[in-house]
């Protein structure tokens, strides 16, 4: 199997100019496959349709995390309601400021093992898939790769058992 056999065709994406408020709304309502609603990350495409970055759940967490807290151990000195007020402050900031740039991608005809190689070595759970034209055509999710592995294991196991 190749990347294109498992990928979910690209339907929803963000632009760098979207606000984080718009972004989380789309993350919440985006459809993945037929029945599932809500995704943990979306590609960000520039106006020319090129892949500019990815915005994931972790990026959103980072957007509300004050930069000064990364500098020292201040976790014990926060207060109830701090997260919510930081979230409100971050709501109108742009996706461009928080998206992860330099995204690892795969081609439609990349073998699945190459995809797993990227996922393990770069600690990513989803890979944008690039089509023949150079544009992004779909997303490959860790979970779907996992199901492919499950299928392979259980198929063989079932036959041996019989």
């Amino acid at each position: 199997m190749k990347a294109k056999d498992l990928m979910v065709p690209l339907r929803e994406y963000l632009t760098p100019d979207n606000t984080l408020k718009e972004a989380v709304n789309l993350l919440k309502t985006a459809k993945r496959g037929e029945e599932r609603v809500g995704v943990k990350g979306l590609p960000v495409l520039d106006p020319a349709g090129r892949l500019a970055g990815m915005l994931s759940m972790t990026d959103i967490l980072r957007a509300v995390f004050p930069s000064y807290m990364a500098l020292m151990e201040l976790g014990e000195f926060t207060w109830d309601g701090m997260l919510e007020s930081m979230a409100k402050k971050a709501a109108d900031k742009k996706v461009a400021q928080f998206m992860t740039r330099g995204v690892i991608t795969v081609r439609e005809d990349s073998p699945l093992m190459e995809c797993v190689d990227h996922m393990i070595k770069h600690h990513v759970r989803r890979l944008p898939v690039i089509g023949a034209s150079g544009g992004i055509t779909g997303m490959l999710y860790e979970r779907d790769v996992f199901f492919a592995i499950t299928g392979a294991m259980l198929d063989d196991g079932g036959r041996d058992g019989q």
Partner: protein
Amino acid sequence: MNAGAAATQSPAMGIQFWTATAIFIFSYAAIMSEKIHKTVVAIVGASLVLVLRILQQHEAFHVESLGVDWNVIILLISMMIIINLMRPTGIFEYIAIKGAKWGKGEPLRIMVVFALITAFISAFLDNVTTVLLISPVTLLIADALEVDPVPYLISCALASNIGGTATLIGDPPNIMIGSKAHLTFLDFLYHLSPAIIVVMVFYVLAIRLIWGKKLKTREELKARIMAMDEREAIKDPSTLRTSLIVLGAMLAGFVLHGVLRLQPATVALAGAGALLLFSGKNDVQATFAEVEWPTIFFFIGLFIIVGGVVKVGLIKWMSVRVIALTKGNLFVTSTVVMWFSAFASAIIDNIPYVATMNPMIIDMARQLWPHDTGVHLLQHAGLMPVWWSLALGACLGGNGTAIGASANVIVVGMSEKMGRKITFKRFLLYGMPLMIMTVAVATVYVWIRYYLLG
């Protein structure tokens, strides 16, 4: 006498003279332009000085008056190691949270308490380190109180530059001056600390005046501060205990280093060694990786570049010009040195500035008191106020602009990261008047203590 001295002591302005001078000027210009990293400039400049044989390598590495001042280098590295080991204990978070509670959650009171804490810590640790340790907490407090964090950031940088002036180890210019003039920790404590205490009193009055009316919060927000328990900050009580004992011993070592005939670098190195040994479970590799090697090599490079122009006579020529200008009047010299240093440090890095001024002042002293040598010359009663003026001017001058001191650059960077950029103009608006005020206070101090009374 001055004219005669100038005529007889003019340097032989040969090819070496102009080469060394060109390397010096281009290096300083490149450092100011910030187009190339200052460490790269310093290393390239120093290599040229050596490759072109302006200095022999032996002179650069082993001759005190021309080359690298290892006392400064080892002192800096040792202090960095000590801080790297102490940071994870949580002591700095503890002090800052405790300070906010002393401030009772009142925004202005907290600002004053933080200025005093920052100044005090800065007197013993590097300014940049102090700012990196204190300002994250001030930002947290500002968020808790829902007040503008920018005044706190600016005040933190200014207070660290003022506090750093108080002791031999507080700020690199003082380390350099102390090493060059063979001044002890106690000398600085006796001569500069009182000046800085007076300056801080004026500084606190000034920040009350500037920000007092603007900082307001609500009662329920103050409760957020008072609910914090600073004891939760202490992550590693056993290392902390060891660190505090070693730090105390080291401080005693600094106070006594003159009596014990130990150089400050020896005391700091012993402190770093003891802490590395007794704090046990630390990762030595990681501790050393966090030493700011670019800063260290910046110093090494600068010492060699300046050594080049000392050897060829440029610095001596400059000192002759200064004496001609001040006509050998030492009060005028002190005052000119202080104010010139202040404005120069507001624009350029005070480290290369002091690296140049140190040999110049020594050359000046040689011309004023040709019969004295060694410590008698370096610590001539007439020269002492000039050293103190240099230290006060170069350190306090850093407050003038956003690029005047590394601590300022750090807070500007931090505010930018938070999306609340402190513009060059906004910093200047607070920094410059406060710099002029503090240097004026320092000038009056020097005048009263060394010329009126002395």
